[in-house]
């Protein structure tokens, strides 16, 4: 099997990235990844991403929090089972405040967990692979893969589309 080469085209303009992605799709080369300094909606549309599943983590966290809030309030009240001023030991209305706060707390914790899992951070290996520090500044980096012998053609492809070229060994 021939060696693979990773070539990055660096663009300043997001429209140029969208156009390069369109051309890349029609070319024989495979898109590996796209880096950018901010979330460009045009590029995300061009990449045709599906909806992120992070919301499910948020929902699961929120439901767990709501139930936990009520559970802890009810459990602790039952442990100290004393009727004061005729008020019920298990008081659903005041307990709602605890349930509500924990819904938000666990919802956020769920979101953070979801983000850590889906974005795969913390992870430091990628920084040493197909990454250019300019991609956190003002450049978008489109990384494509080709066979070793086709490297020159891929470099020309990015240059023709208006990008600076960087080859990863």
């Amino acid at each position, binding site marked *: 099997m021939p060696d693979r080469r990773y070539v990055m085209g660096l663009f300043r303009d997001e429209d140029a990235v969208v156009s390069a992605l369109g051309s890349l799709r029609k070319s024989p080369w495979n898109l590996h990844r796209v880096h950018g300094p901010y979330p460009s909606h045009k590029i995300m549309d061009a990449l045709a991403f599906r909806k992120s599943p992070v919301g499910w983590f948020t929902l699961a966290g929120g439901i767990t929090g709501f139930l936990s809030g009520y559970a802890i309030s009810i459990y602790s009240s039952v442990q*100290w089972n004393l009727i004061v001023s005729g008020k019920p030991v298990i008081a659903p209305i005041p307990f709602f405040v*605890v349930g509500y706060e924990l819904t*938000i707390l666990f919802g*956020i914790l769920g979101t953070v967990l979801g*983000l850590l899992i889906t974005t795969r951070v913390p992870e430091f290996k990628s*920084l040493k692979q197909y990454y250019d520090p300019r991609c956190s500044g003002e450049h978008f980096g489109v990384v494509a893969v080709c066979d070793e012998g086709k490297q020159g053609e891929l470099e020309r492809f990015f240059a023709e589309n208006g990008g600076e070229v960087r080859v990863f060994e």
Partner: protein
Amino acid sequence: MSSLTPAKIDNIVLDTLSPPPRRYWGIVALLFTGAFIGLCCWIWQIFVGIGVGGQNNPVAWGTYLINFVFWVGIAHSGTLISAILYLFRAGWRNPIARAAETMTVFAVCTAGLFPLIHLGRVWLVYFMLPYPNQRNLWPNFTSPLMFDVVAISTYLTVSALFWYTGMVPDLATIRDRAEGIRKKIYTVLSLGWTGRFEQWRHYIRGYLFFAALATPLVISVHSVVSWDFGLGIVPGWHSTIFAPYFVAGAIHSGLAMVLTLMIPLRKIFHYEELITTEVLENVAKTIILTGLIVAYAYAFEVFIAWYSFNPVEQEMFRWRIFGDYGLEFWIMTTCNCVVPLFFFFRKIRTDLRYLMTISVLINVGMWYERFVIIVGGPAHDFIPHAWGLYSPTFIELGIMFGTFCMFFLLFILFVKHMPSVSMTEMKEALHTGEDDA
């Protein structure tokens, strides 16, 4: 905005992280000394006992609780700017959102100290936590004080996570331009973020949920703080208007603090191109709205007392306006309701000197609002025999001074070591703005 480019935004923000001049460390040393004085006063109180504070019968809640409510209030505008205005897609929030979030996190930390200080025997704070124990002592979850513990802990956790999550892409930008040990530190802090679009896809979704969950939290947290008072029977406290009134007041004070922090920050770090006069003007316009809501709440409190036909309530409000703390009441009313009206004049709300003066006056007024509410109620409740006055002692003032110094110390340390303006959001807004045009 038109002359800005992503590279320029990076340069302006990254310049703020360059090694500071000597006078910066001089200010840090002064603030540290102030915070240390506060710590010494607290240690003295722990050794001698809570009696060294001026709180006593009938006023059992003094500056500790005044400052607690004040700082929780200050915290609220950070979340308003970062979460609520994010959901409304208000572009003017972008340059000030990071500093406002930072203000939120440090303000909640400062606020969180006061219940511990007020507790006296601080080592018994674990009594507030629900855990199995042989004495069968459990927190009472029908008490607003317990609601407070849950709400403030949630608010601190959520604000800190929201703040840090928003900062990760910016930390990656700093990492990519740093060298040596700084590079290593920012590499760890940025969690290895590479800005792959797969990452952005999840990130923007997660950030949206953060904002969507933080928004109702703002409303609930200060409502819960208000119920510490509203659910009691003390005249002047027992009111259903307290929740919306406290939330509006919190945002009023927080916006004023945003101006108080942003104006010097803009000048010192040459942020004029990012934090434009229009941004500060929009904050001032929002202050007009919150000021009017607060004025309505003050007026309505008096109306409720009159309409209730309750002589104790009526006497409480007569005394509040004309009694021993009348001066504090008028400072509060003037600073919070009258002074912000000057923002109706464009000349005033676009002049930095006036903006700064008015924002400081509103901060003073909001502190006095907490004073009038917290001290006024118990000092003049049902039985004339039990009436009494309160004034803070030297120890209380020392602790208060120390916490103010601590807040500003944390803030100036942050702005010199972390990105105080969100580069990512500014770059994104730059392109969204172009599309809109």
